[in-house]
């Protein structure tokens, strides 16, 4: 950590950005020093992404100044920001899947001889950049053949090629497991020692405290303050982010006693030997009304694949599914929907939100799909439904005519939830509903799920965060290597360690 007297490499003063109907940033100041890891904190919609996009030239600013390396900048676009030494690695890796690792790292900076690309030298240079980050992979290999974690490191290598003085990591850890996070942090520390200023955004408080030197907190588009991480206890940090006391969180902690689910009747959904080749091995699963079934397992263990079969997003090639005791064939999403089963995908952007449509249109879409195109949802009813859910879920901005693609991740998630809840489902399948969203919204969504279940809705809840699964679920199905390996009833005795053991042992100890 460098001392406070160092000249900031980035100094943003009085930044304001307005979108139609939304004041996204209101006179925000932000400083970034060379050789520090600086965390940008705030709830969804606080303005984190907007601030980053202003700094990377994606958005123009309405007022304020951006000074990078002592020069005032007016970025005309991301390329201008990059030329000024500001590089970004986004949550969803922005690389070209079908090119090789070397091509991705060196894209636009290939080494040329007589105007022709010298591939040998280019690959050698790429290897050098990769090795500087302790990444020993073949530069010729296709990028898509590597895990997301490695791809992220490749993206960072790419930032090093353009000699970035400022590196922005936007939610780099949301899809990584613990070992991969540790590896990424090693790389971040190496870069910090070299004097690179690193702006780090993450919703994992543990990681913030593990890696960051200072942090800036935003709330509702305004600056709350800038703090040294070690001087700000967690509880205070969360308080500053959500701007109120932690009643929601503490409430959840105490409400861990679960209502007993009556498992004597007919399950709402019963899967008997349901499976799909190459996707998930045949499994049995009963889900009773009012029951929350958590799916635990590592990334790629088959959690999502299982959920997709339950909805009909993919169709099963073996086994039988019964809904309320009746055998059904779920050949497509529409079939699931007509049985009051809904599925909220883990990829909000690509499989959830229809970006260019309004919040209203996005919310009504599920209802409309169920009714078919001929029977349009009457305007009055649509208004009622949309109003009701925007209020109930606290969608911000509370403007039904806002373009859904402009909302922050957490608010998009709420819009998706609203879409499904509006269809009055009997089985709600949530795949990673809390990924990449902040503590406050996370707590709200968890609370909502618990409430819905207590009113008799069945829920399948998938999350990479085990304690979240444990806190909510009545029963937990454990998956590993595309197979359901165990199922256990949740109780006070079931801890994260128990589930981790099950995942590790593949269910043999159960």
């Amino acid at each position, binding site marked *: 950590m460098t001392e406070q007297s160092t000249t900031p490499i980035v100094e943003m003063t009085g930044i304001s950005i307005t979108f139609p109907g939304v004041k996204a940033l209101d006179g925000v100041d932000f400083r970034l020093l060379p050789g520090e890891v600086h965390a940008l904190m705030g709830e969804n919609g606080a303005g984190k992404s907007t601030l980053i996009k202003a700094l990377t030239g994606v958005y123009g600013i309405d007022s304020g100044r951006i000074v990078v390396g*002592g020069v005032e900048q*007016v970025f005309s676009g991301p390329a201008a920001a990059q030329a000024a030494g500001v590089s970004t690695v986004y949550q969803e890796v922005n690389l070209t899947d079908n090119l090789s690792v070397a091509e991705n790292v060196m894209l636009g900076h290939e080494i040329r001889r007589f105007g022709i690309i010298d591939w040998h030298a280019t690959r050698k240079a790429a290897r050098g950049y990769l090795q500087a980050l302790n990444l020993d992979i073949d530069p010729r290999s296709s990028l898509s053949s590597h895990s997301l974690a490695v791809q992220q490191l490749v993206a960072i290598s790419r930032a090093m090629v353009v000699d970035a003085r400022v590196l922005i990591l936007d939610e780099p850890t949301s899809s990584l497991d613990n070992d991969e996070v540790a590896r990424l942090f090693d790389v971040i520390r190496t870069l910090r020692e070299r004097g690179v200023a690193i702006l780090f955004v993450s919703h994992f408080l543990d990681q913030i405290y593990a890696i960051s030197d200072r942090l800036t907190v935003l709330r509702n588009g305004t600056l709350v303050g800038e703090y040294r991480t070690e001087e700000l206890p967690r509880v205070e940090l969360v308080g500053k982010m959500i701007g109120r006391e932690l009643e929601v969180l503490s409430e959840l902690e105490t409400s861990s006693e679960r209502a007993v689910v009556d498992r004597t009747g007919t399950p709402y959904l019963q899967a008997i030997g349901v499976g799909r080749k190459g996707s998930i091995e045949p499994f049995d699963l009963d889900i009773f009304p009012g029951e929350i079934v958590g799916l635990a397992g590592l990334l790629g263990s088959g959690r999502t694949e299982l959920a997709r079969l339950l909805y009909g*997003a993919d169709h099963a090639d073996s086994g039988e599914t019964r809904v309320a005791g009746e055998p059904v064939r779920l050949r497509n999403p529409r079939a699931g929907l007509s049985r009051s089963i809904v599925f909220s995908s883990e990829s909000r952007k690509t*499989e959830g939100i229809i970006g*260019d*449509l309004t919040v209203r249109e996005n919310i009504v*879409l599920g209802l409309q799909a169920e009714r078919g195109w001929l029977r349009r949802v009457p305007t009055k009813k649509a208004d009622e439904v949309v109003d009701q859910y925007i209020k109930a879920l606290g969608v911000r901005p509370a403007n039904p005519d806002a373009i859904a693609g402009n909302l922050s991740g957490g608010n998009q998630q709420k819009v998706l939830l609203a879409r499904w809840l509006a269809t009055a489902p009997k089985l709600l399948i949530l795949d990673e509903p809390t990924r990449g969203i902040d503590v406050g919204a996370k707590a709200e969504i968890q609370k909502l799920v618990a409430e819905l279940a207590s009113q008799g809705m069945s829920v399948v809840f998938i999350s990479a965060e085990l304690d979240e699964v444990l806190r909510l679920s009545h029963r937990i199905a454990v998956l590993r290597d595309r197979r359901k390996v165990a199922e256990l009833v949740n109780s006070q005795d079931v801890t994260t360690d128990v589930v981790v053991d099950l995942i590790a042992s593949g269910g043999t100890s159960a």
Partner: protein
Amino acid sequence: MTGLAQLTRHRLFWPIVALFVLLLASTLKHHTFIEVTIRDGHLYGGPIDILRRSSILLLVALGMTLVIATRGIDLSVGAVMAIAGAVTLSQIADSPDPGSLTTVALAMATGLAVCLVIGVFNGFLVAVLGIQPIIATLVLMTAGRGIAMLITGGQITTVTSAPYKALASGFWLGLPIAALIAGFFFAVVAVVTRRTALGVLIESVGINPVASRLAGVRARTIIWTVYVLCALFACIAGFLQSSNIMAADSNNAGLFIELDAILAVVIGGTSLAGGKFSLTGTLVGVLVITTLTLSITVIGIPVNAVSLFKALVVIVVCLLQSPVVQHKLRARRRKAAPVPVEVPA
């Protein structure tokens, strides 16, 4: 932002300006151009002529708008027009009584049935087999005229049939029947897409097909439907075109009309990337293109320079509409270049 600035930023501002400029130029050249008079109980004049001549392109562009809104494209519309004309005129020519209304109605029904099959075929390739629309419809764009030639036996089939001739040349309530037909279908599509949920579902599929499917939207059915509609509208356009010359000319019927139709859609502000579509925009686009073609002759541009003039107008309209150009123009007006500043160390 002032009202004027807001107006110039509207998607359709520049196309409408172009339309008025063309009308004005034609009127300055021939003062009677803009006049509408009543002759034999029918309306006559430049504007009426534009409406009549717009009808074919409007029908084709109508279907094209829906297809483009789903991220697709239909290159086969011109060939479909040729097939529609070939099927219908051959049947009329072979019938014992070409002048009877029943014969014409039956022949048109056959034409529509054939085009329905074509639309189903295109839709099947795109929606079910997942072939890229540009390739899938290229099949019939190239093969379609051959099929039309087979139907007419390689000849240009001509007929004499008063009811059929009325389609393109007749008047009803003082207005050209062709324009009334196109206007009717325009209104039907506008009402159906905006009063039912079809419009928003088409847009949703165009913006994000995967998410739409997971939301329970029958994406495949919707995509299939728009190709069928597009073929049917092209078929009706084919009726009007063949009625206009009272002949089925497989080689030239609707030649390159797919490009004019795509252009009309784009001028109208519907993105080729799919999603939000504007039927009003398409209507304006069609009027601009037709007026352009007509005013070229009225203004008296030399025949050799016609294509160049048309290209120039289209380029200017597209440039003025482009977000990049608009942004640049605004930025130039607003601020000077960035000034570097010294920050004390």
